[in-house]
């Protein structure tokens, strides 16, 4: 099984990818959108005579709304226009900005306006962190619970923690991609991004669990039961010990092999729909689709090439510790 024989290579690649992603997220960072920072976003579209950007900037500056950015954009109908981001606007400020922006060009229309107070932004940030942490916690507990009693050579919590490690990998990679796109293309992070990340979590854990489930099944099939009767304080107990008839890494390798086509096929169908969403879906959900595309790719790779090698590495490390002590 290539996954098992080349497991060191895979783990090294994964470590580099993970550290790289952490570095990118930490030093480049995500660009928070107004959902998190609070602020206003006004999108104006023109049917004809698109005004020049500098002209728009000059006019917006006259409003003295504090710092602002103007970005060129195309709305979903295909009209050109601008996206003006400012601090959270009061109602009179909104009205005057609207008047300013619709005073140029032809057929100007405010197609979208969002204003979010700073309190709501902060709250959303807190909520997002809690939701992601909560989901991860639930997953580790469930995996530990579902795999309880799996016993030798690796305990059920190890499955849970490996699942979490893999999840962190799957979340970091799309975050790094979006961080880079934030610098290159000005992509901002909004509520939908958090949902996409949570969906990646759900997808990735599913992928990993399917493989672990197969490991569990193969372990049960490839073990010998040995019952020893022990007499403790006059009561006879049946103590059951299991010995594996195959090496652990072979069992894991077979499990990966037999679930591989399922992993790839499910990822493929999911990617098909996501790519359709990315290319022909609305602009609002484009980043969402992209995060998931990257996340699903990372998830498939990690469940095959990281989760199982880690399981074996952990088993070997535990064995080594037992021998040395």
């Amino acid at each position, binding site marked *: 099984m290539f996954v098992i024989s080349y497991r060191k290579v895979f783990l090294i690649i994964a470590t580099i990818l993970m550290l790289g992603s952490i570095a990118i997220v930490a030093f480049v960072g995500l660009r928070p959108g107004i959902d998190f920072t609070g602020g206003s976003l006004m999108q104006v579209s023109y049917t004809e005579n698109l005004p020049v950007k500098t002209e728009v900037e000059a006019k917006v500056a006259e409003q003295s709304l504090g710092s602002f950015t103007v970005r060129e954009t195309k709305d979903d109908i295909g009209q050109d226009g601008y996206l003006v981001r400012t601090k959270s606007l009061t109602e009179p400020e909104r009205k005057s900005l609207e008047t300013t922006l619709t005073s140029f060009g032809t057929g100007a229309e405010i197609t979208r306006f969002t204003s979010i107070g700073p309190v709501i932004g902060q709250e959303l940030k807190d909520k997002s962190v809690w939701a992601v942490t909560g989901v991860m916690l639930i997953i580790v507990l*469930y995996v530990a619970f579902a795999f309880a009693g799996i016993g030798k050579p690796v305990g059920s919590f190890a499955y849970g923690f490996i699942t979490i490690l893999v999840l962190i990998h799957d979340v970091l990679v799309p975050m790094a991609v979006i961080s880079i796109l934030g610098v290159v293309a000005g992509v901002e992070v909004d509520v939908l991004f958090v949902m996409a990340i949570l969906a990646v979590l759900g997808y990735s854990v599913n992928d990993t669990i399917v493989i672990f489930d197969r490991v569990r099944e193969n372990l049960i099939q490839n073990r010998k039961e040995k019952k020893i009767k022990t007499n403790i304080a006059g009561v006879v107990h049946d103590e059951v010990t299991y010995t594996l008839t195959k090496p652990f890494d072979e069992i894991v390798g077979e499990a990966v092999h037999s679930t591989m086509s399922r992993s790839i096929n499910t990822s493929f169908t999911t990617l098909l729909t996501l790519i359709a*969403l990315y290319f022909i879906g609305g602009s609002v959900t484009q980043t969402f689709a992209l995060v998931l595309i990257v996340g699903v790719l990372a998830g498939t790779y990690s469940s095959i090439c990281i989760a199982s090698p880690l399981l074996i590495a952990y088993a070997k490390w535990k064995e080594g510790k037992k021998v040395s002590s």
Partner: protein
Amino acid sequence: MKNESQNTSSSTDNFLRLFKAVAILGVIVWLGFFVYGNATNPDSNSPFKLGLDLAGGAQLVYEADISKIDPAEIPALMNVLRNVIEERINVFGVSEPVVYLESSSFVSDKRSERLVVELPGVTNIADAVAEIGRTPLLEFKLIDRAAAAAQEQVLALQASATGTGAQISNVQVNGELVDTMNPYTDTGLTGRYLESARLEFTNGQGGQLSNEPVVSITFNKEGSDLFAEITRSNVGEQLAIFLDGEMLSAPRINEAITGGTAVISGGFNPQEARALAQNLSFGALPVPIELVSTQTIGATLGQEVLDKGIKAAALGFGLVLIFMVFWYRLPGLIATIALLAYVVIIMALFQFIPVVLTAAGLAGFVLSLGMAVDANVLVFERFKEEIRLGKDSRQAINTGFSRAWGAIRDGNITSLLSAIILFWFGTSVVKGFALVFGIGILVSMFSALVISRMLLLSLPSFTKEKNKVLNFLLGSGFQK
């Protein structure tokens, strides 16, 4: 799961399996027509509900200032607030406005209560913001008798001058220029000083009409003092009561009123009087509110986002179906039917729960289309393995389902738990997504475990060696 040994191939048994399969197909087709009818019929009782970002419209989020309110009273007051705002919104005649309350979750340091107002189809929010922020303004004004008399004369003159082109200007009373149109002087006493207001009926004494609905108001300490002061120094004058700039009544002050109560009568009907009493007693609103977030989306833009989402869903779904048939052949075709059933059931649930569809929800649905095949794929892969081991197809199907069950269960339960957490934590946008995601998980399990299984079992039994054609149809991927 059914036992593998229960594999009698008698003709009645086969007929029963086929009958079940046809029956379930019939139900799906019927449901499909039903959903289609609901979606296209404009008078339908349960059409798809579109969120603001798809239908276009405005969303206003107000934060209530609860800092001075006893926490125990908050829920009741927030409900009153919602009712008041709802009434104000109804003035607009917007179709299906939605007003709901939202509390910050326990994760935030500060408890906050919000009121969300959704106005479908409204993009000019200026009027809405003004109307919602409106406080019914109650004012008490003294009438300047000289000015009032002058005004009466001026009005009479104006009436007689109508049509002659004559104009009246510079009206002077006692040598002083007066604003003829405003013979009222502010007293500084307003609705701000109210403690409570309630509906009462007059009992017919003192020449009043009996049983006329009036609003009895009680001032707070400050207001009582002010009221006493005004009445004391203006005995014999008229004190006019204004609501929203309109004079309701102008009773004569007979003596100083020190009790801090007054009665507003203005020819109300009981409903009007009750509404006024309610509005006044909340000092306009039970809790002060502040606009913290607004969102407007043009209707054409929303429609476009919806159209694009539907196109993406259709294309993605089509590609998935083609892949399934190409790769898994006959079982793939069956999975296709199960997937169609999945879509129909989901849509029926969207209509009946109802789930408000947003751009995020639509994205979640598109995602779920790709993931819904997972359970089928798991089963088919297991099924192939069993066939390879030489089992006959029916045994292989049953074993495939029972072996795949563990993985399907564990994977879906974790996803479902994630959806529940999302739903629990989320704001309304996140909730919509979580609901779509959660429903998707449950329905996809049903479609794979019940529908696919029933259809697969209706196929005739065979083994690997016996039937080449079936063997091909039940194979997969690039193999022949």
